[in-house]
């Protein structure tokens, strides 16, 4: 299309002169996601070095996390500079590749704690379900790039993308990795709502979900998964058994009070009352040792981080990039919300790590790649 036709479509808000000054004035904004990532990672490592000073399987793991950060930094530099449109070109390939990895997990995966989630590469192991979050967002951004959704998505519009989401979802559920599956569903839902679902369909989905929920609860879940939900509703029904983790975690958070017990001085974590204190329950270690004052600052940082991601999505002038940035940001948001909600006893216990704080290589690499893509989008806007 020609330049003139574009000009006719512009309204006063999009005055090119105003745009330029606005952008130049807030040039530094483009780096905000990265700056916040560095802040959160640093704080996360300080906390992890306390959490892994416990005499159990986690001892000394912060060193492994440092190595992952090193690898992630290289990955960030690689992902940040080429024009992000390569992600659009490779979107389906990335999706298929990740699907292949998920199948490989089924075939040759390593199991741990009764779940088969990892594939080993020499000394390293990779968790493809973590990477799938990012791959799926790239896939969806590409899928909806040329579809007009202003009038709301109809049922037939949803058939194809839902199938493409359900395939990896099924592979992840059989691992089983319910936490990741839940995040995938939440992110998919967020993207659909962002793109707009027609009101009629939305009502229909809500009714269908209400009907399906008890069925899934009774027949779809394994007994231990059902138990997690019962104990969530009433943790005191079995305080030393199934409700143990939830209660101990809440005690850890609460006992931090205003200023915390001090770094490396959390009794809940260091006396082994907290399960998985270096991975999913890392926030309970943090809140026990740092207290409400620092917890609210951490939460503020996370909020600013989400806002910076949303602003990248908002200011992008490319639909693929808008949906991609939004999708990535929603991954972060749901991780933070579900993890903290679980640690503070508001949500049932599912394995969802806290971005930049939890120990875990694949999750950290996924997070760092996500930030790299956000910064890439923010910086490439005016380069053509």
């Amino acid at each position, binding site marked *: 299309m020609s330049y003139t036709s574009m000009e006719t479509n512009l309204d006063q808000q999009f005055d090119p002169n105003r745009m330029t000054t606005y952008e130049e004035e807030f040039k530094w904004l483009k780096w905000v996601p990265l700056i916040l990532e560095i802040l959160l990672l640093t704080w996360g490592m300080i906390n992890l070095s306390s959490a892994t000073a416990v005499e159990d399987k986690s001892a000394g793991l912060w060193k492994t996390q440092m190595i992952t950060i090193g690898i992630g930094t290289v990955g960030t530099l690689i992902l940040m500079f080429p024009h992000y449109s390569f992600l659009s070109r490779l979107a389906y390939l990335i999706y298929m590749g990740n699907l292949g990895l998920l199948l490989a997990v089924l075939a040759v995966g390593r199991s741990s704690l009764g779940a088969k989630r990892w594939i080993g590469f020499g000394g390293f192991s990779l968790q493809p379900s973590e990477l799938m979050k990012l791959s799926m967002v790239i896939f969806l951004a590409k899928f909806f790039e040329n579809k007009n959704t202003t009038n709301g998505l109809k049922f037939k519009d949803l058939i194809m993308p839902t199938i493409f989401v359900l395939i990896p979802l099924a592979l992840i559920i059989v691992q089983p990795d319910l936490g990741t599956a839940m995040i995938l569903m939440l992110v998919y839902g967020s993207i659909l709502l962002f793109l707009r679902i027609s009101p009629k369909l939305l009502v229909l989905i809500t009714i269908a979900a209400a009907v399906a929920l008890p069925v899934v609860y009774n027949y779809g879940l394994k007994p231990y998964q059902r138990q997690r939900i019962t104990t969530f509703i009433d943790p005191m029904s079995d305080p*030393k058994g199934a409700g143990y983790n939830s209660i101990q975690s809440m005690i850890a958070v609460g006992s931090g009070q205003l200023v915390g017990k001090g770094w490396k001085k959390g009794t809940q974590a260091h006396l082994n009352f907290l399960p998985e204190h270096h991975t999913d329950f890392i926030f309970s270690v943090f809140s026990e040792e740092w207290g409400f004052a620092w917890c609210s600052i951490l939460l503020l940082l996370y909020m600013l981080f989400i806002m910076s991601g949303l602003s990248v*999505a908002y200011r992008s002038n490319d639909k693929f990039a808008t949906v991609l940035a939004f999708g990535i940001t929603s991954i972060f948001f749901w991780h933070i919300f579900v993890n903290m*909600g679980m640690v503070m006893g508001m949500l049932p216990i599912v394995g969802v790590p806290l971005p930049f704080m939890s120990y875990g290589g694949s999750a950290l690499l996924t997070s760092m790649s996500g930030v790299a893509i956000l910064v890439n989008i923010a910086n490439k806007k005016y380069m053509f």
Partner: protein
Amino acid sequence: MSFIGNEEQIRFLQDRFKYIYGILFIGIGVLLSRMFFLQMINGDQMRQYSEENRIKRVKIPAPRGMIFDREGKLLIDNRPAFFVNITPQYLKESGKPKEVIEQLSRVIKTPVEEIERKLQKVKGQASFMPVLIKDNLNRDEVAALETWKINMPGVQVEMGISRMNIAKDVGSNLYGYIGKISTTELPGLNQLLASNSSRKYQLDDSVGKSGLEKQFEEYLRGVDGSELVEVDAIGRSIQIAKNKGRVLAQNQEEPSVPGKNLILSIDQDLQNAAMKGFGATQGGLIAIDPRNGEVLAMVSRPSFDPADLSRGADADIWAKLISDENHPLRDKTIQDHFSPGSTFKTITAIAALEEGVITKDTTFNCTGSISVGNRAFHCWQKHGHGNVNVVSALTHSCDVFFYRVAQKLKSVDDIAKYAMHLGLGRKTGIEVGREVPGLIPTEAWKQQRFNAPWSSGETLSVAIGQGYDLTTTIQLANAYASLVNGGTLYKPTVVKTIQNEDSKVIKETIPQILDRTNLKKETVELVTEGLWGVVNAPGGTANWLHTPGLEFAGKTGTVQLFTQKADKLYLKCTNMPYKQRHHGVFVGYAPIKNPSIVVAVFAEHACSGSHGAAPVAKEVIETYLKKYYPDVYNDKAIAEAKKKPGAVFQSSGGD
């Protein structure tokens, strides 16, 4: 540009951000309120709960698998070990830390300064974490500590498991030792275990650090169980929680699963015979069954007692073991390589016979030395051996014969070929780890290593085992095993089977063939005849050990550590400083027909193979023959054999 086509949609999407921000602020608001509720409103109560937290899951350590010999005799067992801890926080709260430390110092007979130093060292860690003060407490110390416990707040006695070698230090280099995992080891160990995380290691776990304990860690280690224990606010256990009659989790006690047991091919009687044979001599002995590669005995001297190292060794014991210049921690059968000395002549003889440069009738005249260029090559027998053929050359270990053979061979590579096929100069692959490869020199090797061509004089040194060649005791045993079984080189193995606690076999070792040399029948006959003569013919280098009725064959070797000038060559070895004395080597086998044991002995600085190494081998061979062939080799038969005329020769023994 996509902006143009999608502009309407992008603007539509931008419009939706107001809802998105709404959801974000609600979400963050919910989290913040919950945080405020838990930490600020309920904080006091939660803090109190955390201080009263009494139920703690503690580990029940799984017993480690035991190690047995081929007849089921227990070699390595677990035994309880007591150790004493101090929890710094509780010590401080007692208000009299100095008195407590002083009293503890008296009970465990450890200087106050040392206890304080140990407490000082862990200043950075949380003060409610116990600090190990002393390991391996004896019964009296445990009793005294239990008595004085009330007066010593912060001091606890705990029990752990230590490894015990029933025979103290016999074979410890083979079995290895366990020790506490260090912070640096832990991530690496767990990385390998990603497949089974219920077996993940924790910091106070023990892990095999050397020998079979290390190589078979995955089998020997059990799966720890756990139970809920009532503890006080600083983590000291009060009692098992279930005894309080509380309703606890359904999985309150997870039993531990013991580790798997190893059944070795080792025969403890032969191990003890080797020990007896060595006496004060140092070195290594390995006995192999030439029919399948099973290791029957494997002993290294001096050694150590694994019990001293099990639970974080005493710093003094460690320092002593590490700085000991006789290397008690090293397995000398596989980790020490040395020039094989005259034991290598067997290989040279095989090479010469197989390559056809000599026959059984070839003789050379030994005058005590030969000259090559302007250099003289001496025989160990100053006045020479006269006319010798291949059989008598082996029997008398005549150097000159093999110098002449070396001159006739096309190149050193002819010797190297047979040496390598017989397994010399490469790792045998025995499942113990830490093996050194040794070295068999070739022309190409020298060119690459020194960038210089091979000189023919060097072939002479190689021919008598004094050149660049380096072998380990296990390689020598295996090479001779291959010779006496007709050329099949087996991989030596120590572990026969791995069994679980109810003796069900989980894994069985199958003999594995590494190489096959098609030796001519005549070659084997001539060489073994020469080896028979070493012990049994008049003038044989180990003839002084000849016992009628207990026939065995073998080859002696004496390894000079330094190239010596002619005037020093014949100096009496025992007059030299210990570290400069020759090594003694002996490789023997029995019975003469259809051999079923090959014994190689490396006697460090023992001056000669005949007097230092061969008697050790004889001790093992005698024990073996009497035990496994009681019909043929018994006291009655030996006494009868002695009566036969000309049964005993007199000889002082030689090289």
